[in-house]
């Protein structure tokens, strides 16, 4: 989880990602940041995020992103 928060702060510094509840829909990070975010997450957690995963439900908060990461890790 900490690594994830580090990545998030790297992509968009100055945001309290621990408590943000609506990251994608409120456009805290925009579509451009998503790309960088995804590439960093893919590298860090050795998963492959696909466009199918890029939905608001997965990117609501740091928690939901982490859930998605875990799910993708287990899906292998």
């Amino acid at each position, binding site marked *: 989880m900490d690594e994830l928060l580090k990545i998030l702060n*790297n*992509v968009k510094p100055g945001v309290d990602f621990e408590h943000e509840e609506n990251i994608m829909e409120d456009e805290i990070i*925009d*579509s*451009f*940041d*998503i*790309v*960088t975010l*995804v*590439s*960093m997450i*893919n*590298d860090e957690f050795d998963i492959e*995020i*696909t*466009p*199918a995963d*890029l*939905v608001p439900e997965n990117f609501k908060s740091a928690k939901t992103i982490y859930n998605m990461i875990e799910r993708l890790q287990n899906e*292998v």
Partner: protein
Amino acid sequence: MLINSIQFILFIIILLLIYKIMPKKYKWTVLLIASYIFYFLNSSKLIAFILVSTISIYFVAIKMQKIDEKAKIQAKNIEDKEEKKKLKNKAKKKKKIVLAVGIIFNLAILVFLKYSGFIAGSLNTILHINLPIFKFILPLGISYYTLQAISYIVDVYRGKVEADKNIARVALFVAYFPQLVQGPIGRYDELANQLYNPHEITFKNLTYGSELMLWGYFKKMVIADRVAMYVNGVFADYANYSGPIIIMAIIGYTLQIYAEFSGGIDIVRGASQMFGIELVENFKRPFYSKSVDEFWRRWNITLGTWLKDYVFYPVSLSKVTLKLTNFSRKIFKTSYFAKIVPISLPLLCVWLGNGFWHGSGLKYIVYGLYYYAIMMLGKIFEPVGKKIISLLKINVEAWSYKLWQMLRTCGFVCIGMLIFRAENLNAAIQMFKSIFNVHNLERIFNGEAFLIGGMTIADIVVLIIATVIFIGISIAKEHGKNIRESFAKQNLAFRWVILYGLIFAIIVFGAYGQGYNPQSFIYGQF
């Protein structure tokens, strides 16, 4: 059958009656049959194309789902994780091929019908050959339903949506008539169930829906069709106009296309609402946008989201782009450019797609690239801009600053509209240059500049009043007011006066019909 015609209104009325009396189980078939009748009335034999597309995506979706199911069953019987992964990947590859076939097949039809002439012509010019150039009549809504069809199979591929076993349901999704003319581009998960489930025809839906339609007709017929006279007059003869007249024509065209497009969407959304089916909004007061970025999230919204979900994200997460992302991260570390370089590729694809989608011709490609350039430059100079703002201690929350941002965005958009509307690139460049040619100012002061294309003073008065009303409603909506709801709470007398006012504004002030030219009615005694 145009949507702004009495025939369309009669069509809707008859359809509502039939839908109401149909038993619940079959209500959706009314919509399906009506959609095909509507299609046939508009494109007759070309209906074959939408049928072919529908059938293709139906089978592609079913096939992909079968591949998945087979793989799941096989995977159950395998213990080894490596084997499981291999199986999964094989299935994924198979699915991908089927998907690719589906996409390419449908895109090919669209490209061939819409762009073959342009492609052949361009090849002829570049390679000095002589390919035959065909110009085809396009089947109604092909640019819209093709995107919708592709979104369905991609969503099935991604597991977002289950393949529909009922081909008639798929057919209804693709051919649903309100969205054939100019969108909005719907998604299967939002739309399919709505279309299929029976709805009660409620008084509220009927009134809200028809009010929305009236508002759409008002925008289209009183504003758009009227200002179009002026715009057409100037653009058809652009060499003879300069300076402020060109500016007015460009702004006029922007107003025209906004009123026409959003008005058309209102009409179809209103019509759809009467059946209890909600189509997504396609416009959210785009001229409030403070950046071109934001503009394209408020203008033709469904095209933007389609490009985001089916072009931008897939390209951004593709192997090529990820490689590029890693590469730029290594080179630029965490600097700003680490982010910019990787999005340049997907963004280019989006804007080329956007440009191409709008039309067949060089100017449309330039149109797309124009916005691409603005966005890329905007992104590149973002840190510079931020620095300047902090240095000059500019208050970005001040309404005057926000106004500047909106006007600046309008400016960019208007220039984009110039490229879009001008006869061709040359004309656009000519017209842009002539903006700075300001030597006929007296035409403004004596009013001549306004009376082009058959516009009369009466027309201008009507246009201004109607536009002011339009702006007023937009401001109210931007501040969160739900117009129809608050309208419904007013007293009956007021509501009826406004409704009659709106209806007769459309009938009397609408720019339709042959017009009454007293000259042609003079009986010269022979």
